């Protein structure tokens, strides 16, 4: 399972979202832990997605990945998009975490945060 912490869940476009992702193994050894700041649409139309950044931490026998908080910092593009909750469409920003597991389905989790317009 993942424990995702975001330092400030409300950021403005052009700012940086910081936090940590900790993966707690239930016995498997991942090839890597992948962390991304990503957005997706959800609603009554086709799904669109995008990423502001991705961090891949490969498995290192000398440094176990389980139980160790991995810090991240992703710059949110100045052009957005901004988070949006509409009647037919949402734009959702998330910190998405994925454990690349050999010979089985990858473990995934995500935690939403809000991206707002820049306030002068």
């Amino acid at each position, binding site marked *: 399972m993942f424990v995702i912490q975001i330092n400030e*869940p409300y950021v403005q476009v052009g700012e940086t979202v910081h936090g940590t992702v900790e993966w707690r193994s239930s016995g498997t050894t991942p090839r890597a832990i992948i962390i991304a700041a990503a957005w997706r649409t*959800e*609603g*009554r*139309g*086709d*799904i669109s997605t995008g990423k502001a950044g991705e961090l891949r931490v490969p498995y290192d026998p000398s440094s176990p990945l389980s139980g160790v908080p991995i810090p991240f910092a992703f710059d949110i593009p100045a052009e957005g998009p901004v988070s949006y*909750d*509409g*009647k*037919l469409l*949402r734009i959702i920003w998330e910190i998405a975490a994925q454990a690349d597991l050999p010979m089985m389905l990858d473990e995934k989790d995500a935690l*939403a*945060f*809000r991206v707002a317009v820049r306030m002068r």
Partner: protein
Amino acid sequence: MIDPYAALGLRRNPFTAEPQAGVAAALWLERGAPPAPQPWRRSFTQVLGEKGAGKTSLLLRWREQTGGPYHYVPATPARWRPPPIAGLAYWDEVDRMPWPVRATALALAARRGASLAVGTHRDLAALARRCGFAVATVQFAPLDVAAVAAWAALRIQAARLPGEPCALALPAHEAAAVAARAGHSWRVAADRLHMWAAEQARLAARGCSA
């Protein structure tokens, strides 16, 4: 609030569009459709209805039970591609097929004794009979209040946050309004329900009663 739907005890809006065609088994609502056609019966079962009525969903549900190739006819030059013929084949949006392709494919399928289940916006019974098929037509009744309410309840249940009480329930008057507006189209119903659920989430996030 980061996620207004969490205020209702939901992971998301229950009425989002699915990226893939078809309906998951847990969300299927029985509305009296006949059982799946049988292979090698020289039968032509047409699922006739307007956009959003559930033609593709029914074809894919039958196909889960019977197997067989599924052929979707796009609104592009690829619609000229000949469809597969098998013991039981599923052809969707068959009215898009150019008539020479459709007539030839039907004649070939009938000659082989194959069965077809097709989704179509136009009645193709006359052509199918001329080719020698035994024809059955499935048409959907307009959505009624009970169907909309049951359909909505399934989707709300599927969107619940584990271990959290759910504060979203579709009132009868809303179900009636959706049914009246939607006619035969589940797609229109889902659009209306999505907007309704979004408004309930907005109100709940602001701490207002619905």
